């Protein structure tokens, strides 16, 4: 029961993070600077798989995701959640998912 309560609190925490507002001017200002191959790949992969539902990491069809902890992001990508489909390793290899997570961390940092 303790475990269940912890999961529920985590889910609430995630939803509150999704509701948190971020600075939207970072992209206009050219931030984050894409200065590594991993960030470049992460950005391209993000555009391919995630951008259309979470534009710039913010809410659109789906909720904003910049505030979601990385481990939860990975879980949700691999398993789906609600209307969000799962992206298995055959579609999105681990290396590309790692790079997307790195990219999102950079976007989040830039938007503070």
């Amino acid at each position, binding site marked *: 029961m303790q475990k269940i309560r912890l999961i529920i609190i985590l889910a609430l925490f995630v939803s509150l993070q999704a509701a948190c507002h971020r600075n939207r*001017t970072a992209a206009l200002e050219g931030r984050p600077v894409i200065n590594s191959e991993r960030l470049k790949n992460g950005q391209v992969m993000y555009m*391919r798989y995630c951008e259309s539902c979470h534009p710039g990491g913010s809410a659109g069809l789906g909720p904003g995701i910049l505030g979601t902890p990385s481990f939860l992001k990975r879980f949700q990508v691999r398993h789906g959640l609600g209307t969000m489909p799962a992206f298995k390793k055959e579609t999105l290899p681990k290396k590309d998912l790692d790079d997307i997570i790195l990219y999102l961390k950079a976007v989040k940092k830039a938007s503070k």
Partner: protein
Amino acid sequence: MKTLNYALLLAALCSTSCYSFRGSKGGGQTTAAATRQASADDILLPAGYQIEIVAEGLSYPTALTTDDKGGLYVTEAGYVYGDVFTTPRLLRLNNSQPEVIYSGDKNGPWTGVTYHDGSFYISEGGQTAGGKILKVTRDGKASVLLDSLPGMGDHHTNNPVIWKDHLYFGQGTATNSGVVGPDNADFGWLKRFPTFHDLPCEDIVLAGVNFESNNHLGTGKANTGAYLPFNTASRPGQTIKGCIPCSGAILRIPLRGGKTEVVAWGLRNPYGLALDRTRNKLYVAENGADDRGSRPIFGAPDVLWEVKEGAWYGWPDYVAGLSLKDHKGFKAPGSAPLKPLLLKEPGEVPKPVAKLGVHSSSNGTDFSTSDQFGFKGEAFVAQFGDMAPNVGKVWKPVGFKVVRVDPETGVVTNFAINKGKHDGPASWHRARGLERPVSVTFSADGKSLYVVDFGIMLMRDGQVLPQPNTGVIWKISKKS
């Protein structure tokens, strides 16, 4: 303690994922007043750029072009979703009052205009009499280059581009995803044209999938197959003959007159056709499918495509290069699994150049050709913004801005957005910036980007409520 656990569980469920419980928060779903006072102060751009108002008070402007002397000309649509009819017009923007060059027939929307060799070429959408391509001289004399295009449905004849002595244009589909249904009655055209349906560009063989709905043309139930009139069922293995003109395609005609040809097909609403002069290639921004009608599709992005001659882009059985039968994520919540409508695929579907926001209505597109303006070689796309909840629910408004797209990488970056915590039109923000950008056009010297802002369109109680006299033309340029 048990009560606390249940309370926490309920709070988590309600706030996180449950799509069915959740409402929609689209950009038109606002109680804001339907009046407009535009100001550049409420718009954000990259450093070094400025934006100013060129004209305001227009009614449903859709496109802008310049003549060989730098004069600015704008089309007003003459037809708007919500089944609103006004007079389509070609206007010259003077300092004081727009001058009417030509007024058209009640057959809009006029979706695009381009200027070439002394004349204006206009795409007339075709809501009452079929789509047309008009040629209008500078002194307002009009002739019809092409008519009887299948533009009487959901999507229309779009955006002419002149290239290689031909006029290219987009022809949108009649339906959302291949099947005439109750959503087409809501659009208003099903009663006007009860036998209208989509037309393939080549012979296709149907899988025989049919969809039951209420009979909006009579009583009881209707059973409708793909590429057939409402309440006409299909059979497995049934062949539908291809024809030209067809729907869901990019077509072209020689400027000097001649046969209409198919350039590419299988595109749902190829609205933003644009020539990239840097790469000498044609691109198109396509509006993706909606979560509505007899065959709703969930989560379909808008797409920027490179136009490849002879290619089939997948509609109605693919979304953004992905097959509906292999990707379960496109199944709309609460709906049956998606089955292919075609027994045999007409070709191999290309991969998108870029994926744009679901329900963003990524429309008019143009490419930067100037180092002075910047971002040379990138596509600039006007995002009209969502029409939620009619197209499907959204978590927050999608679109209502101008984005730039790098065709080499598919990276989409905001270029002109409203101030505020989220994307959304000025009316939603209770502010004075962009409402619904519908097209962008670079000036002939490439140093300025004109943004045609359609104006306020509210979405209330299932109705589409466009507001006249709220259209604005913006001009973006580098600060000196």
